[in-house]
């Protein structure tokens, strides 16, 4: 008798350990922290409304600890839940601070218990629903719909899903088109080169590079930026070709250019 009890206790300890390990191994099988909490809550073997949230918090935190030692990556929401439960646990253990006007620890715990009960209730409801007789499996519709060829009228049909998908398709069509730069506000280096080449021949004196921007482009910031970059890049090309010289007196000072051989076209 006593031996039986010892064996039983041992079996139980083994079973508990196996259960804990099974939980860990199965971590991918959980549909989020609430699902895991529900599984843990069941090990308390009490009505969900009578669950010890404190104990549950400890179980959950132990689970997360254990997962860490096993180097199992837990998704962020599991860790968020762990942080929240650690907070709840401390609130449950400590007397409320005076002047604390947020929800009490008991209220938070009660809500968690409610969420678990509600999730369990929905699972049960889902199971009951799926256990019902189902069309095409337990009961059947007329196999031979009668068609009497008499009046032939075509009606057109579409589902709401068709409608929404069509709209979605139209509204997102542009997202799918190959990426093309909107060229309206882009001044290319080739264009800048074209513009700069004939002009620099006359630049015997050092002149501000910015004075070579195409007309009108210096007003709009977007166009100005594009034109500046293109003109600068073009000027570097011309330096490389030995056509012009480039200087900048100091950092952020205006960049100046002049023809390398004044007068040379």
């Amino acid at each position, binding site marked *: 008798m006593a031996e039986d009890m010892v064996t039983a206790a041992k079996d139980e300890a083994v079973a508990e350990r196996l259960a804990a390990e099974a939980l860990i191994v199965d971590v991918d099988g959980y549909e989020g922290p609430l699902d895991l909490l529900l599984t843990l809550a069941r090990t308390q073997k009490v009505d969900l409304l009578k669950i010890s949230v404190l104990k549950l918090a400890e179980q959950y935190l132990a689970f997360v600890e254990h997962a860490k030692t096993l180097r199992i990556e837990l998704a962020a929401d599991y860790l968020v839940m762990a942080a929240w439960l650690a907070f709840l646990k401390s609130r449950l253990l400590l007397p409320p601070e005076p002047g604390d006007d947020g929800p009490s620890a008991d209220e938070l715990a009660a809500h968690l218990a409610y969420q678990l009960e509600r999730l369990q209730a929905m699972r049960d409801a889902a199971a009951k629903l799926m256990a019902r007789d189902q069309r095409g499996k337990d009961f059947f*519709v007329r196999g031979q719909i009668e068609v009497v060829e008499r009046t032939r009228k075509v009606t057109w049909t579409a589902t709401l899903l068709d409608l929404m998908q069509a709209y979605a398709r139209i509204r997102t069509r542009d997202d799918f088109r190959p990426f093309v730069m909107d060229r309206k506000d882009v001044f290319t280096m080739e264009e800048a080169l074209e513009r700069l080449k004939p002009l620099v021949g006359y630049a015997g004196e050092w002149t501000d590079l910015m004075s070579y921007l195409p007309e009108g482009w210096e007003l709009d910031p977007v166009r100005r930026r594009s034109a500046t970059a293109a003109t600068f890049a073009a000027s570097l090309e011309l330096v490389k070709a030995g056509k012009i010289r480039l200087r900048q007196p100091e950092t952020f000072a205006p960049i100046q250019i002049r023809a390398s051989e004044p007068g040379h076209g």
Partner: protein
Amino acid sequence: MAEHDEDLARPEESLFEAPPEGEQERMVEAILFAAAEPVSVAELNARMPHGADAATALERLRKRYEGRGVNVVRIAEAWAIRTAPDLGFLMQKETVETRKLSRAAIETLAIIAYHQPVTRAEIEEIRGVSVSRGTIDQLLEMEWIRFGRRRMTPGRPVTFIVTPGFLDHFGLESTRDLPGLRDLRAAGLLDNRPPPGFGLDEREEDEEETPDMFEENEAEDG
């Protein structure tokens, strides 16, 4: 069939006399047999001769088929003939392999059925996990759920409700017949209970335009 109090069809009301009750029952029988999908009383009336009363004929027909191999069943506002569920075993040949629904899809479906109209955020709050895109899509495609009215809360989120096709599939007359619904409601498990500290239940405000009263409810596990 014996009641012939048919002075209903007074000549000044209609040029055509309504068919006798027995005939009306035959007509309803023929129409329901021929159609695979449920037929509404309005449609029955529209298809039957002038003066016929489909609702009465239907009731008689329903009684007649009680206990038979096929039964007259009600689905939302419409009626259909379906084989008796206890004879499903004979029908293996007709069984169509329905796509296996994932656990997430089944739970989502149940939550929509029991909580409808329900928003995506509410489904996620109940399940404690985000609803994957494919899940709602799949249920929409099966025509078991559809979009309901928008919730009159900030963001005006769309809601989901179940369809008559859902009721038909699970042999339900209406969502009121969902298994265990009354107990769940009595236990408060179908309430939209906000987490403590969030004060007002947003559903209470439903009707009024409450533009930006409060941030989303989802902040709770932050």
